[in-house]
């Protein structure tokens, strides 16, 4: 999950910078968010197949496993958002306050995303996430409870 949070954080930064610096190419950046989000959603439902089938064996129904998958996707994307937020707003600000603006200029140029771009990016990433989220939830419902037993 940690790896996906980092991937999403990088995605936030790339998309936010793209939308800010190259507004004419906004579709490419939203497309990138869509591709990453969809791949992630497919991977989540793939990685969680064993857990999903065990939960189904012990009495969880499809709505319960859909909530599980949705929770994980939402958790990862919001954690990544908060991570970028923390870095851009608090950590860099604090570092600049303590050590001087000049000391963080290098990092700033790589990691900093301004607040408005961040929320605009969040909106687009949520939108790009929706088809993948629906797909992963559907895939979760298709996991048979017998799968975990067959892998014994």
């Amino acid at each position: 999950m940690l790896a996906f949070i980092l991937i999403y954080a990088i995605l936030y930064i790339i998309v936010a910078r793209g939308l800010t610096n190259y507004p004419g190419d906004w579709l490419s950046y939203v497309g990138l968010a869509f591709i990453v989000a969809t791949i992630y959603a497919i991977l989540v439902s793939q990685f969680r197949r064993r857990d999903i089938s065990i939960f189904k064996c012990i009495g969880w129904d499809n709505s319960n496993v859909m909530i599980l998958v949705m929770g994980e996707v939402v958790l990862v994307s919001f954690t990544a958002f908060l991570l970028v937020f923390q870095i851009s707003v608090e950590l860099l600000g604090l570092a600049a306050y303590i050590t001087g603006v000049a000391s963080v200029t290098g990092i700033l140029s790589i990691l900093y995303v301004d607040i408005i771009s961040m929320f605009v990016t969040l909106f687009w990433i949520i939108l790009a996430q929706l088809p993948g989220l629906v797909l992963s939830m559907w895939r979760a419902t298709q996991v048979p409870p017998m799968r975990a037993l067959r892998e014994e």
Partner: protein
Amino acid sequence: MAGPIIQLEGVNKEYGKGKNTVAAMKDVNLNIDAGDFVAVLGPSGCGKSTLLHVMSGLEAPSSGRVLVDAVDVTLISERDLPKVRAQKIGFVFQSFLLIENLTAYENIESVLWPRNDITKQEQENRTLAVLREVDMLERRDHFPKQLSGGEQQRVAIGRALVNDPPILFCDEPTGNLDSKTGENILKIIAQLNREKKMTVVLVTHNQEIAKFAKRTLNMKDGVLR
């Protein structure tokens, strides 16, 4: 002893199609009374695990009827089957089938998470009571990888008990354990049958394990005797 809690009538289960059809269960008829402890004994691949899966609704039979606590699981929709499993059946599997990234406590409590008819406090109380019952209270915060095979199986038993189901299905519950640990697990299962009056159906290939049961049935090539 009360009437049958599990009834199988003319149950067949086939896998594959055409020339590749394999019959895992052949015309199985079986009545298991409430409070009974039945061992199904047979060699590997004889269809005994399939029997458990069919009885629990995890697999649909090719033909025949399966009644669990007066509910015909062959007629229930896929949507409602999980509810029946959650209410009526506890499972203990050979390879424990615990969720790796949940603690012992969470693995047990996870059965109760979808239930909105009991409060969070009640879920916690039940989970702690079950952990105490299987003597795993002190290891409640450990993840499956940090537990021995015997401890993992005790957590799995706890998970099977937390919903207080009347039936316990055990599929080779000691298959991955050494003989002493296996015996302890079987004693816990026998105790549940004796003290809680749980109906236990245990499948095994080991004659020694079957001795813990009140009744032994033999299965060979899909035929139950």
